[in-house]
């Protein structure tokens, strides 16, 4: 167990190092930081001075080391566009994105899991086929289109929900939350559903296909042969064996929530990290792009580690330190 953890940790660090390298090269080869930061009429001496100050004349490995050390401390420099520290910009917008992502994840799980189990158990029923068809539509529609359609229906035609922005947020210390005001709650519904829809259909189809696979297994046949009632066979044996791989995959999906948040935030003009990143891409604001890259990589690596540990806890076959069957047959 310990050896396993250490190995994964080392791998994680290696991945982060590679990502940091990529981010660093972005700085090196894309655009010129000095040009980005000063106006057109800056003199050459001014530019040289700035170069020295930014350490751009140092040998590359030194630059990288500086970069990496600063990144590890959360210092990603100053945004070209906003002229403010990147770390602060990100922190300001993090609550918005996180709340959106969490709400979307909850919606996706609450609806996706039961739907998946149902369509897995009642494979040939009409309701199942209906759900499966709708889910195919859900996977085919791009997130932004879903968002627009929802806006059109609920904001333009029905006028029930707002079509953009976060609404009224309530401050809790440094955190601003949508959950504590009516306007905030109303504002978060459409974006969260949009963001969560893809996840929901994904989870549902995943659980269904895992369930169908498991129901074909020999131990299910044997369980039936022993006369176990359907309740035990389906919700005891089949479901448990389905959830094990599924839990881990859902964990990995959390990452894609962050990615798709970029789109959702654009559609609903939600002031989160995703929107920040997109604007950065459009104007080639390298510091923000690099920071986002590193942050996302870090996030994924952490999630992967947690998922690996979860697997270990849930599947007894992986716990090799327990005594194996000895003796003769």
């Amino acid at each position, binding site marked *: 167990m310990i050896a396993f953890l250490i190995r994964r940790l080392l791998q994680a660090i290696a991945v982060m190092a590679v990502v940091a390298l990529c981010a660093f090269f972005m700085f090196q080869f894309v655009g010129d930081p000095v040009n980005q930061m000063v106006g057109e009429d800056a003199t050459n001496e001014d530019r040289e001075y700035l170069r020295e100050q930014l350490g751009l004349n140092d040998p590359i490995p030194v630059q990288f080391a500086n970069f990496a050390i600063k990144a590890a401390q959360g210092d990603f420099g100053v945004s070209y566009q906003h002229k403010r520290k990147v770390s602060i910009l990100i922190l300001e917008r993090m609550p918005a994105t996180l709340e959106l992502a969490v709400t979307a994840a909850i919606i996706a799980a609450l609806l996706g899991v039961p739907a998946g189990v149902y369509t897995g158990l009642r494979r040939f029923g009409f309701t199942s086929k209906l759900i499966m068809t709708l889910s195919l539509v859900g996977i085919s529609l791009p997130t932004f289109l879903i968002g627009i359609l929802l806006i059109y229906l609920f904001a333009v035609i029905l006028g029930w929900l707002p079509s953009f922005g976060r609404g009224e947020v309530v401050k809790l210390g440094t955190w601003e939350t949508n959950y504590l005001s009516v306007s905030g709650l109303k504002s978060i519904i459409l974006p969260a559903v949009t963001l969560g829809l893809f996840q929901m259909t994904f989870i549902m189809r995943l659980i269904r296909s895992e369930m169908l696979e498991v129901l074909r297994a020999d131990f299910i046949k*044997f369980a039936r042969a022993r*006369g176990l009632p359907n309740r*035990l066979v389906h919700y005891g044996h089949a479901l448990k064996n389905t959830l094990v791989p599924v839990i881990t995959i859902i964990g990995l999906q959390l990452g894609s929530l962050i990615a798709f948040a970029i789109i959702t935030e654009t559609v609903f003009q939600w002031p989160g990290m995703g929107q920040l990143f997109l604007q950065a891409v459009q104007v080639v604001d390298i510091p923000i792009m690099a920071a986002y890259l590193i942050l996302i990589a870090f996030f994924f690596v952490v999630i992967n580690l947690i998922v690996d540990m979860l697997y270990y806890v849930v599947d*007894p*076959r992986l716990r090799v330190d*327990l005594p194996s069957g*000895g*003796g*003769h*047959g």
Partner: protein
Amino acid sequence: MSKSNEQSLLSVRNLRIEFPTRRGDLVAVDDISFDIAPGEILGVVGESGAGKSLTGAAIIGLLEPPGRIAQGEILLEGRRIDNLPYEEIRAIRGRQIGAVFQDPLTSLNPLYSVSRQLIETIRTHLPLNERQARDRALELLEEVGIPGASERIDHYPHQFSGGMRQRVVIALALCAEPRLIIADEPTTALDVSIQAQIISLLKRLCHEYGTAVMLVTHDMGVIAEAADRVAVMYSGRIAEIGPVQEVVRAAKHPYTHGLMGSIPHIGHHVDQLTQIQGSMPRLQEIPPGCAFNPRCENVTDRCRVERPNLQAAAHSEVACHLFDAPRDNSQMEARAGE
């Protein structure tokens, strides 16, 4: 026919199992009938694809769609069980009819401890509480010969060796003391050295509990060791059925004869083992008449046209025209002269 219905535990009558495909119905089991007496061990032997496992699955009601019972009846103690609604079949499973399958590793849920699987089975069939069920489970494990049962009862399947796992499977099958057990290739996935142990365990327990067994296998050695009677299946039909000594020592059907000849005997020196020419036909290509006729040395024209029924011969029954009653024999001789 052999034993009368009143004495039989299990009675299979004219069972026919079909698989509808888009090119027509494939007949996997074609009109077979046999009985199993209480406490008897009936071996069912034949090549892969002969229909043995399907028959077992049909008896316990686990025939997987699109396969279906097209015709025939299955009677348990005189009562029909092949056409029962789901809940009634389920009530029979485990309690009246149990099953042991080939691979003990995949038969057990890897995520559940052995105790959990035992206890849930026991409590499904018997009105015991958790504590009592656990005690019973422990007893069962000891009966099937698992050393250190009290320490290992909470272990997971992967922590047992193959032979031990199969003992657990047998314990699970015997939980509710069923009258009949369908054992489908119970030793095929095990080491040869373990096979004998498992078979003798099965024999002992079945004699103790008075449980009948339908022992499906392709291994004649297992049959010779364990069975009281044996049915030889070929292409979904029964070729021969009778007391094991008679079928093994004095095989009548040409196919059985070939099977016996292909088994090496210690001390019996031969230069070449008997081989039967050709192979068992695929389901789509079963020839008319006797299914074995293309490979049979003693084939006659009648064999190619008319399917033989089971006829009495000594203490067994054989489905072969060579053993038809004298009246038919003369007709056959007349034709053979042409």
